[in-house]
């Protein structure tokens, strides 16, 4: 696959998988307003994923030759036939790829756990995503820059909301503080992967179209630790750690992703091409 297409799909997969995880809270939030807040964040993320998948699909359709489909299981919509070949669509990318083809980081496919774990995952990622979009909006790929410019306005709400919750829980009761400590223990091991560039990220960065995530580590650490300090929680350790054994960016996922896909893709797998 063209490295820039891989890069865009990686960005899209991150947004889709976290959006899907958050949507699992819909109807189960601790109170109605927060249920709605997290559902809204899910909606923003899935919307961002759609824009990114559409861009990736358009690029891949323009780049691929008819005999060499860019992904192993492209969408199968009958009206997408062009010159006898199947065109790749946003739905095909979301619903018809299997786990090893997904490029999201492992952090985002982790189970929701309790409210503290969901909040902490959102907090870690939103701060990262804000920095990433901020860099991407100045990138040399105009369509990607436009998506970043649009998305960052939504991400700033996610940053604010999740940061407020980290403070509320961390500096709350003994119970809520303890739950945040547990969440940090669960999620901190998955953080280094965010900042270890995959080949396609290096390519995108070198060509000016994307950003090397390693460059985002210092600003991320500064932002996150400022909030963690206010929240009376232990800081995220500054020294760089080795990455986890798994690398979602390269398609090596935890078992959790398969369960997400089983539910998310069920309808398109059972009734291929189904529309309503």
């Amino acid at each position, binding site marked *: 696959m063209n490295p820039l297409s891989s890069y865009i799909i990686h960005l899209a997969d991150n947004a889709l998988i976290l959006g899907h995880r958050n949507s699992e809270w819909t109807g189960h939030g601790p109170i109605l307003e927060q249920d709605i807040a997290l559902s809204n964040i899910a909606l923003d993320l899935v919307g961002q994923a759609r824009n990114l998948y559409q861009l990736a699909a358009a690029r891949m359709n323009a780049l691929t030759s008819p005999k060499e489909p860019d992904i192993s299981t492209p969408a199968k919509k009958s009206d997408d036939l062009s010159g006898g070949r199947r065109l790749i669509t946003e739905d095909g990318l979301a619903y018809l790829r299997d786990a090893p083809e997904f490029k999201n980081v492992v952090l985002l496919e982790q189970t929701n756990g309790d409210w503290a774990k969901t909040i902490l995952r959102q907090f870690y990622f939103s701060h990262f995503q804000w920095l990433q979009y901020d860099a991407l909006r100045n990138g040399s790929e105009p369509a990607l820059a436009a998506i970043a410019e*649009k998305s960052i306005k939504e991400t700033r709400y996610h940053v604010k909301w999740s940061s407020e919750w980290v403070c509320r829980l961390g500096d709350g009761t003994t119970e809520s503080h303890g739950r945040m400590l547990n969440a940090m223990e669960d999620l901190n091991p998955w953080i280094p992967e965010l900042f270890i560039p995959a080949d396609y990220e290096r390519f995108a960065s070198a060509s000016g179209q994307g950003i090397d995530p390693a460059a985002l580590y210092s600003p991320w650490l500064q932002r996150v630790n400022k909030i963690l300090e206010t929240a009376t929680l232990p800081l995220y350790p500054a020294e760089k750690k080795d990455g986890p054994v798994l690398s979602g960016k390269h398609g090596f996922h935890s078992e959790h992703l398969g369960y997400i896909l089983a539910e998310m893709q069920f309808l398109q797998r059972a009734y291929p091409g189904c529309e309503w």
Partner: protein
Amino acid sequence: MNKENIISILGEVMDPEIPVLSITDLGILREVELSENGVIVHITPTYSGCPAMDAIQQGIRKILAKNGIERVKINQVLSPAWTSDWMSPAGKEKLEAFGIAPPALTAGCALAEAGNDEPDHCPLCRSKNVELISRFGSTSCKALYRCLDCREPFDYFKCH
């Protein structure tokens, strides 16, 4: 039919989630082009995940078809990113009359940091004594507030 006629027809397409606002009031309609192959309508989404966009596209096709224009292409543009600065003054008045506080900043919404924008007053009793319940309301574009005088909750259309 010329471009101005078409724009005025499209002014009848309402946002399904805020039925007093049209797509021209909201600044969702960006441009109309007439070409040999029909009409090209350029629209921009308010928020990336706004579920109203599909209904709005259907609304555009329906109303143009009713006026005899069948060949329509709808193009979604993302740049420049939509901002609530583009909401028309008439749109803001309609919002308030509907019970939704309009964006308080008249310009610079795009640059406003989340949380720095607050409704000017309660759209029901006009009291300035209001408090935030949640940054996230019944749709992506709204926050939920409560009036401390008339005690009614109300939606605030965020600066974005």
